[in-house]
C-alpha cells in the first residue's frame, strides 16, 4: 500500500498513517508492505491525485484542495467562508453529507476510509486589522493552484496576489503580499508570524481532509485486510479530528510567546464580516460548490441551529 501526503514526517498525521498501515499490514499478511511518502515527496495535492490515477500511488491523506479534483462536492466543507461556526456544525453537516459524497467517490474509483481536519483558516497581516474594510487596502495571498479562490477574493473586494506556497514568506518580507490566510498550525510551522505579526481571531473556514484509497487497491485486499484498514482508519481519523480542535489554540499560544498580537473583532465588525461572506455565496454556489450541495449545506445548518437554540 503506497500512500502520499503533504503532512510532514513524524507529524501526528504521519504517525497516525503509520499506525493505521501497520494494523492493515498485520491483517493482510503475506508480503504486504506499507510505504508512506510524506512532505509532498510525490508532489502537491493535485500531483498526488494524478499519481493515484495512473496507479503509482494507491491512496493519500488529502485536503479538499486535492479531494475536489476527484469530486467537487467536497468543496462545500472548506470553500464557504464563515458558513460554519464550530466544529460541531462541521461534523453535523459532514455526517449528513457523507453517504452521498462517499458514494460519488466510489463511483469515480476511490474509497473514503475516514475524514480528518486540520484547523481553522485565520488572517495573518503585517498591520493590525479587524473589520473587512481594513483588509481592502492590503494585498492578500491566494494559492496559485486555486484560480477559483482568486475569483472569490476579487468578489469580496480584496487585492489577491496568486503565488505558490513556497513564495509566501519572501513575498511577505518584500511586501508583495500583506495578508496571508492560513491555519495557525501552518503559520507557526512556516514562521508567518515574523513578517505578519497580527492575527484576526475569526474562523474564516475549516481545513477538511480525508484519507482515500483507490478502488483498484481496495479490491485487491483480503476481506480481513479491508476490515482492519477501515477500523484503523476510523481510529486515525478520530485522532486527527481531536488534534484539529486543540492545535489552533496551541499554535496561537506558541506564536503569542513570539510576539503575535491577536485582534478580536467586535460584534459590529463580526456582523460586517458575516454580511460580506454571505454576499459572495451566490457566486460560489454553482461555480465552486455544486448548487445542490450548497443548498443542502445551508438547509442542514439552518435545521441544526434551530434545534440547538
Amino acid at each position, binding site marked *: 500500500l503506497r500512500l502520499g501526503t503533504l503532512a510532514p514526517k513524524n507529524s501526528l498525521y504521519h504517525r497516525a498513517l503509520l499506525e493505521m498501515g501497520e494494523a492493515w499490514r498485520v491483517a493482510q499478511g503475506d508480503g504486504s508492505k506499507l*510505504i508512506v*511518502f510524506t512532505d509532498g*515527496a*510525490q*508532489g502537491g495535492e493535485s*500531483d498526488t*491525485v*494524478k*499519481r493515484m*490515477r*495512473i*496507479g*503509482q500511488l494507491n491512496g493519500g491523506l488529502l485536503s479538499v484542495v486535492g479531494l475536489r*479534483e476527484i469530486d467537487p462536492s467536497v468543496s462545500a466543507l472548506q470553500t464557504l467562508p464563515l458558513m460554519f461556526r464550530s466544529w460541531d456544525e462541521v461534523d453535523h453537516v459532514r455526517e449528513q453529507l457523507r453517504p452521498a459524497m462517499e458514494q460519488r467517490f466510489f463511483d469515480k474509483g476511490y474509497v473514503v476510509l475516514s475524514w480528518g481536519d486540520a484547523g481553522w483558516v485565520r488572517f495573518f497581516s503585517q498591520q493590525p486589522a479587524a473589520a473587512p474594510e481594513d483588509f481592502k487596502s492590503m494585498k492578500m495571498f491566494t494559492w*496559485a493552484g486555486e*484560480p477559483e479562490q*482568486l475569483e472569490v477574493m*476579487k468578489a469580496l473586494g480584496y*487585492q489577491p*496576489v*496568486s*503565488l*505558490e506556497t*513556497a*513564495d509566501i*514568506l*519572501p*513575498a511577505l*518580507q*518584500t*511586501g*508583495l503580499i500583506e495578508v496571508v490566510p492560513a491555519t495557525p498550525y501552518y503559520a507557526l510551522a512556516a514562521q508567518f508570524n*515574523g*513578517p505578519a505579526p497580527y492575527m484576526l481571531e475569526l474562523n474564516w473556514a475549516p481545513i477538511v481532509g480525508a484519507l482515500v484509497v483507490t478502488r483498484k487497491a481496495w479490491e485487491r485486499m483480503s476481506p480481513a485486510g479491508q476490515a482492519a484498514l477501515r477500523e484503523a482508519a476510523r481510529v486515525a481519523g478520530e485522532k486527527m479530528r481531536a488534534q484539529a480542535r486543540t492545535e489552533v489554540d496551541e499554535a496561537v499560544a506558541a506564536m503569542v510567546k513570539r510576539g503575535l498580537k491577536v485582534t478580536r473583532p467586535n460584534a459590529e465588525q463580526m456582523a460586517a464580516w458575516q454580511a460580506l461572506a454571505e454576499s459572495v455565496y451566490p457566486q460560489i454556489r454553482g461555480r465552486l460548490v455544486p448548487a445542490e450541495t450548497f443548498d443542502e449545506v445551508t438547509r442542514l445548518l439552518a435545521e441544526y441551529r434551530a434545534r440547538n437554540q
Partner: protein
Amino acid sequence: MPRPADSPPIYDAPSERAGPWWRVHRVEDTLLSLVLAAMVLLPVLEIALRSTLSVGVANAAALVQHGVLLVGMLGAAVAAREGRLLSIAGLGRWLPERFRWVHRAAAGGLAMAVTGVLASAAWDFVAVEREGGNLLAYGVPVWWVEAVMPAGFALIALRLWIRSGERLADRALSLAVAAGLLGMAPLSTATPVVALLALAVLLGAPVFVVLGGVALWLFAGDDLPLAAIPLNHYQLTVNPSLPAIPLFTLAGYFLAEGGAPARLIRVFRALFGRFRGGAALVTVLLTAFFTSFTGASGVTILALGGLLMPLLQGVRYPARAGIGLITSGCSLGVLIPPALPLILYAIIARQPIETMLLAAVVPAAVMTTMLVLLGIWRQPRDTAPTAFDAAEALAALKAARWELAIPLVTFGGLASGLVTPTETAALTALYAFIVEVLIYRDLSLTRDVPRVMAECGLLVGGIILILGMALGFTNYLIDAQIADQVSEWVQASIASPWVFLLALNGLLLLVGAFMDIYSAIIVVTPLIVPIGLAFGVHPVHLGVIFLANMELGFLTPPVGMNLFFASYRFGKPIGEVARAVLPALAVLAVGVLLITYIPAFSMWLPGVLLR
C-alpha cells in the same frame, strides 16, 4: 550544456528555405515563437491589469506554466529536426568515416526505441488525465495541452529515425535495431538496458534518451506504471517558477544577438582600459554577465569569444591564457543572478527564488574576484596603459545606457515587491526586446526576431526535455526510498559537519565531471538537501556550494561543456583547451573552499535584505 550533436551549435538559421518540408518547418518555428511571445506578454498584461483594475487574466499563471510545456515539446521537436538535441560524447567522431553509418544507425535505433516507449507512456498518461477531466482556463481541458507530450515524443522519434542515416538502407537498419530492442523481453531487469544505454551515449545518442531510458527501465523493473515518467515531465514543466528559465534565456538571446556585446565591451574598455589587466577584467565581467542571462555558457563562448580574443591580443595577452580566461569566465555565470541553475536549484530544493538569488551575490563576487586577480596577474607587465579618455567613456556609457539599465529592471522588479519572479523574467525579456529591436534596431522585427526566438526555443526545449527525464529518474530514487537510505547511511558514517562538507565537495566535483549541470541539479539536490540539514547546512548555502562546484565541472573533462565549446570556437584540440584552463581551475577551487567554509558569504545578504 552538452555539445549539440551534429551541426554547428548556434547562429545558423533554423529552417532555411531548403528541402521539401521547409514550409512546414517554418510554420513549426513560427508556432514556437508565438508561444514564447505569449509567455512574455501574458504576465506583463497581468501586471498591468492587476495594478490598474485589480482584475487579472483568468488563471494567467497556469496558462504561462503550460506554455513551458508547449515550448519544451515544440522546441525539442525542432531540435530533433535540426539534429541538435543535446548529447555528451561523440565517440563516433573518432571512428573512421566509412564506419560512421553503423554507429549512427545503432545510436539512432536505440534512441528511437526509448522515445517510442516514452510516446506510448505519455499517451497512457493523457488517457487517464482525460478521464479526470480538469479544466485549465476558459473551458479548455488540461489534457488538450498534455496531448502535446505523446505527439511531441512521436515526432522526435520520427526525426531521430530520419537522422539515423543518409541512405534508405541505413535507416532500415536503425528501424530494425529499434524494433529488435522493443521486441526483446519487455523492459525487464534482465535486459542489459544500462549497458546498451551507456553504449548509446558513447555513440552520441541524446542525453534525454539515456536519462529517460534508465528511468523507464527502473520503473518497469519495480512494476510501476511507465506513465509516471511523462507525469514527472508534466509536473516539472508546469512548476510555477519554471517559466523564469525560458524567459530569462530569451532576454539573453535578444542581448547576445543584438549589439549588446560590442557596446558593453566599449564601455568596459573605456572605463578600465587604462589599468594594467583591464582587458582581463573586461573579459571576466562580460562573460560572467552574459552567461547569467543566457544560462548557457556555451552560447557566451560562441557569442563573445570572437570579440574578446582580439581585445586580449591587442594588449599582448598570451593566447593560451586568453582562451583559459574566456572559457572559465563563462562558467562564473552559473552563480550570478538571475542564472538559470540558481532558479532551478531553488525550485528543486523548494527554497524561495529571491533568497537563492540574493544568497549567490557575494559568493559570485568572490569567485569573480579570484578569476579577475588571476587574469590581471597573467597580463604582461611591459604593455603601455592607454590614457583614460573621459569623452570616450561618457560616449560609450551613453551609447550603452539602455543595456546597462537591465539589472535595474531585473533586480528592481524582484526587490520592489510588485511582481513575482516569473513576471520579472517576462519584464526583462520584453525590455531586452524593446532595447534591441525598437531602440537600437540591431535586430529586424521580421528577419531576426523570429530566428532568435526559434533558436531560443530550440535550446530551451532541449534543456527542458533533459530536465523532465532527470526528474523521472529522481522520482524513482524517492519512490524506491533510496534517497532516505543514502541520507541515513551518510549520517551514520560521518560525524563532523566539516568532514561532511569536504566529502560533499569531492562528490560534487565528481558529479560535475560526469553529468551536465541541469541533470545534476535535479538528480542530486533531493539527495543532499536532507543530509545537509542533518549536518546543520542551510539548503540555501548548500545550493551555493553545489553550484560553485558545478562551475568547476564546466571546466573538467570528460564532460566539461565549456571545453567543447571553446575547442569549437577557437579551433584548438580539447586537450589544449583543458590545459589552458588549469590555472583558472586551481584558483576557482580555492574560491569553492572559501564559499563552503564561510556560510556568511551566502547567508548574510538575504538575512539583511529579507529581514
